């Protein structure tokens, strides 16, 4: 297999692909660079809104163009604002910090993290309540900014298709600026 076609990739995205096809994909000597564009096509067709998807961040979240802005958006349509700010700051957070609440999500009970030392954070989309992320960290730990892609560099260097609004400013973490303004 040299190229993964759209139908097969769609099956992969939907979790309906056969193990044999997955094995074939894994045996590709070199990954097909055009996959990214096919992937974006499939994802764009899945969502109900029109913003152009620049990159998939998460099962539900995308970096999209919104006018002249690049924002994070959920497939339900909820918008998280500037993608340079850790999107977790725009979620709803539930904290599990008791033994009982830890045991609701870890089994057997002996496997549950110790609430005397750790807390479990669940991040939900305010729009659709989807669980977007889980962190298990000590109290007082900063939110983890899991993925902050350099879109300009990726589109220019890896995909040979520079974005029209390139600017060095796009790859500056704005999380602290957002928090300073609170």
């Amino acid at each position: 297999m040299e190229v993964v076609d759209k139908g097969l990739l769609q099956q992969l995205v939907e979790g309906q692909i056969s193990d044999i096809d997955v094995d074939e994909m894994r045996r590709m000597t070199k990954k097909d660079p055009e996959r990214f564009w096919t992937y974006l096509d499939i994802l764009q067709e899945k969502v109900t809104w029109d913003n152009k998807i620049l990159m998939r961040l998460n099962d539900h979240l995308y970096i999209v163009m919104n006018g002249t802005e690049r924002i994070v958006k959920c497939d339900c349509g909820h918008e998280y604002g500037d993608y340079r700010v850790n999107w977790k700051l725009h979620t709803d957070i539930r904290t599990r910090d008791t033994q009982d609440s830890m045991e609701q999500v870890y089994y057997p009970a002996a496997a549950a993290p110790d609430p005397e030392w750790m807390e479990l954070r669940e991040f939900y989309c305010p729009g659709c309540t989807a669980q977007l992320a889980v962190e298990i960290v000590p109290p007082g730990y900063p939110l983890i900014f899991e993925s902050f892609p350099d879109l300009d560099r990726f589109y220019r260097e890896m995909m040979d298709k520079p974005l029209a609004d390139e600017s060095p400013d796009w790859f500056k973490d704005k999380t602290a600026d957002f928090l300073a303004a609170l």
Partner: protein
Amino acid sequence: MATVMKEGLGLPLEKTLAYKLSQRDTTYDETGCYWGTKELTLKDQDPIKYEQFFSRLQSAVFAAREKARYVAASPGGREMGESVWALATAEGDTLAMSLGFISHCAAFPVSIKHMIDNDFEDNPGINDGDVFGTDDPLTSGAPHPGDTYTLVPIAVEGEVIAWACSVNHIMEAGAPQAGSWPVFTVDTFMDGFVFPPMKTGENLRQAKWWETLWMRRTRAGAMNILDDKMRLAGCSMIHGSIHEIAEEYGVEYYKQACKEIIEESRRMILDNMRSTLIPGRYEGSCFRISMLKGQQTIWKHADKNEMLHVHTMFSQDEKGGIVFDTEGSSRWGYHGFNGYPGGSDVGLYLGITTTFAHSCKASAGVNMNVESIYHEGSIYNPDTEFAACANIWAQSMQMQCLSSSAIHRNFFMRGYLEEAFAPEDSWDGVQGSGVLEDGTPYGFTNFEWVGGGAMGAYPFKDGTPCTWAQHTQLCNVGNSEEFEYLIPPLHHLGRKLEPGYCGHGKYRGGVGQSSVHWMQETGQRLGITRGGSATSMTTFLSSGMNGGYPAPGVITVTALNTNIPDLIKADGDTPTTAGEVLAYAAKGKLTGDITSWKYDPPEQSMGDNDLWANAAGASGGWGDPLERENSSVVEDIRIGQLPEDFAKTMYGVVATKDEDGMVTMDEAATKQEQDALYASRKADSKPAVEWWKEQKAKVESHTIREELLEMYRSSTSFAGYDKHYRNFWQLDDDFEI
């Protein structure tokens, strides 16, 4: 031009190792190519000859592994295959590796550089067929003294052109705490039998004193000598093969082809990275408890509890190679969880090597595409030569999984979903020592739950148990036959997958495994500890994948003075997993002193009918668990991998399993339960900004337990992380953390 001879060596300067090492670095710095090799001349001129040449090298190291393990070996070397054989250049750069511990290619150049920098060429001399050994984390790049290296120089007419290298994990390291991953170690002097690179034999034969050292300084001398013979047997085979190949192809062809092989793989690995990764910054963290308070009272400076913090930032350099910065990771301490940069790289390269060198010659070309940054003073680069490093694996496999996690997020974002999964692999080892009834002392390590980890969940399907071991391509189902008959008092009372034990999600991680070890005929004395990765106080990594839960840590349960004989007499129904030990105890069926440990237990003195139960090898989930198909939950219940009550709290699936194993789901009750779980998400959560303000107040008022404040003070003693921490909580520069 007159030939310059290096004094005392009788060799032209350009044939000395010191010169080669210097020239390799200079030419790479100048050109960005290995040894300045801009053109792959030999490959271009005669590719068939070039590939045949490489296949001869590859065959030599593969043959060494497959034969040497059957010459002599401990169970760790043979049954587990915790070993690797490799061929390196004169400077120590790997050319070809067997299956096995391939990330140890990071350590070979550290040992060889140490020997070159310390004039070993002059004294004691580096000659064809000499045998060198080492296991010292500081000077040889060994992760810990349990990993022992044999290095054999291959010289033609006095010029070293290659090294045959081998490493394996030995069965006992000779530390005060028996086994091969001591936890309760204060400094290097308590790590066990630590030796920097030294000449231990000549003409492919070890000196007799070397065997005596193993017998006197470790508790499993016979096993360790078997492993030593195994490593040397393989190196001897490689030594012979390379002499034949060099003669057949000519030494000059040999030397030039080796440079081209590494340069070729450097380029291909870089291309693999560029074609699958996305430039950016990917943050990760994990934690590992070091609970020593009250247990190191002789050494007061080590008598403390610490939560170790591993913080990483994964990014790309200008070429597209990987930059892995560990700033913010804790400062080193008086415990066994430190390591030096070489050994840290061995951990880091576990996933990187297999991920990016899959389609090319797996050589030192990997190393040239990875910049690892270990800040001085941290657990990965102590600013002392005496730090204990006996058990860096307890957290470095987590550290490497943070790198893999970033890579797998990249695969997902770029559309290569078939390669993406939640890369977590908790592991556990039972270790200890004892004295048999007849007075025979012994020490041991059981690698059972080192080799059989689970795959994490993919973005399109569940993970699978017993199919992954990040440190080797040769995972197994937790092989233990040879360990069992070589560790007299440990018998398996039970062994199977531990139901529900994984990170859950839309797609769940592979379920972990569990054993219940039953002590019989414990003789005069038996003491047991563990040496493993994250305990169940924490999860394996901090972040789950896209809404899934990260893998749980390792479960350890001890049961002393049990009524197991009564249970056997009654109906033979005894616990078969760690979870069942606790469940039987809760029901009152199993009696005794039963403890579930959230941290490394101190040595447990065990007698007949005591139990040591552990569970490990669980992996992480992917995606929102409430998006999991109900039918998948029902199927998990049917096959015994998910208890019904937990299916309800985790997935909202209400189902019952009858005596025949048939599972029936109550659709209406399930809908109601899942609606309730969604409702609880709204009811029990708050906007992140509100949460942030409350947490900031906690941070500012120091209402966090003291050990965790100490952890933050340790991490923020590194300037970059201090800025990161203060920026997030918006703390003034003069605020005392």
